[in-house]
């Protein structure tokens, strides 16, 4: 029977009972939050618009046995411009889908939260950088311990620039470690990915159209391979 305050980014929601919604958020302090917003599907509710996906909110929660109930919400950032740009929404969709897949309940997720907040802020500022999703995936994977090895061999740790990439080994492989399934990546692609991994999402290096598409594909497959899940949002965006 306790009230507590928290902050979160709304990831998604679904109808619950007659007029309620279950709202899933990412909190920096508690990771994934599963909450109930009562009565929000009625037009009289003043919560409705505040709990749309991609909104950064301050919350007051009433702690329940299973789900916490939202008793107050105030909007910190609703990202109104982002919502009017199809490419920005699709990019945000992938960011949110990834976070939803990896975040755990009752486990602080400060880095992931900051990264998602920065990603949405960048999309809000626009225009959409062609590599913003690729950079987000590589950086967010790193934030949850799935760091692709790009500047040293994933097998033996020898530093160097290698072009053979193994999804199973989690990075590039040197000539003596290379496995039959390792892909030969386009010249410069590994360095391109490494530069994206190191850059701030709001200040990415200029996109190279000859590498951008393949970099996106590698980042996507890397994440999908290690999470053993498909990123449906990327299939939607690439269709």
């Amino acid at each position: 029977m306790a009230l507590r305050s928290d902050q979160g980014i709304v990831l998604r929601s679904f109808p619950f009972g007659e007029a309620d919604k279950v709202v899933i958020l990412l909190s920096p302090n508690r990771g994934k939050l599963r909450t109930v917003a009562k009565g929000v599907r009625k037009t009289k509710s003043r919560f409705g618009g505040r709990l749309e996906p991609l909104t950064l909110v301050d919350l007051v929660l009433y702690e329940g046995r299973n789900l916490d109930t939202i008793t107050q919400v105030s909007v910190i950032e609703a990202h109104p411009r982002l919502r009017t740009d199809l490419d920005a929404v699709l990019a945000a969709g992938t960011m949110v889908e990834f976070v939803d897949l990896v975040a755990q309940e009752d486990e602080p997720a400060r880095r992931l939260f900051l990264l998602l907040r920065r990603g949405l802020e960048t999309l809000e500022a626009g225009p959409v950088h062609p590599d913003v999703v690729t950079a987000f995936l590589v950086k967010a994977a790193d934030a949850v311990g799935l760091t692709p090895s790009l500047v040293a061999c994933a097998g033996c740790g020898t530093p160097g620039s290698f072009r053979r990439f193994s999804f199973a080994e989690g990075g590039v492989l040197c000539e003596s470690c290379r496995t039959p399934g390792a892909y030969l990546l386009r010249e410069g692609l590994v360095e391109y990915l490494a530069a994206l991994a190191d850059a701030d999402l709001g200040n990415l290096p200029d996109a190279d159209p000859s590498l951008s598409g393949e970099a996106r594909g590698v980042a996507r497959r890397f994440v999908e391979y290690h999470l053993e899940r498909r990123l449906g949002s990327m299939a939607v965006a690439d269709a």
Partner: protein
Amino acid sequence: MFEPPIQRLVDELARLPGIGRKSAQRLAFHLLNTEEADALRLADAIVEMRRSVRLCSRCFNVTADEECAICRDPRRDPSILCVVERAQDIPVIERTGTFSGRYHVLGGAMNPIAGIGVEELRMRELVGRVETEHVAEVIVATNPTLEGDTTAMYISRLLKPAGVRVTRLASGLPVGGDLDYADEVTLGRALDGRKEL
């Protein structure tokens, strides 16, 4: 646990939206205690509805015929199409009495987060209709949610080459409501969509 035939009905009723265990039991016992003819009429109505209702071959509204009543009505203006997410949105718009065009039911909305894309929706059919039915304006009446907005933006991009006018329902304040009762997101959109007086 009840006797198997009753339990079976309780289980079926409990699968309906908005019906919990308790309500399902109450309904099952009501049907048990009511006149047999009344209960059978309900069963018959369900069977009849499921057997006879299908989708309109033109707009995907529900109908008992090849085409729905709206598509068959010669007074409806075929040059204006109103795109809705679900067939049950059509009567809601019809009740306003202010729309005289035809409809197109998408079958849902794009949800990039959940991986619901355009293949799951009747987008190709929409493009086909715009081309063959000489449509001049498409009014997108999807829900004012992230999914509905995303779908609207996609339709606008999709139909740009066809040169058709694409409009979106304005979203704003509920009529009869109090300004200080609106959340800031709704109010912000109402401001964006303001009209000259």
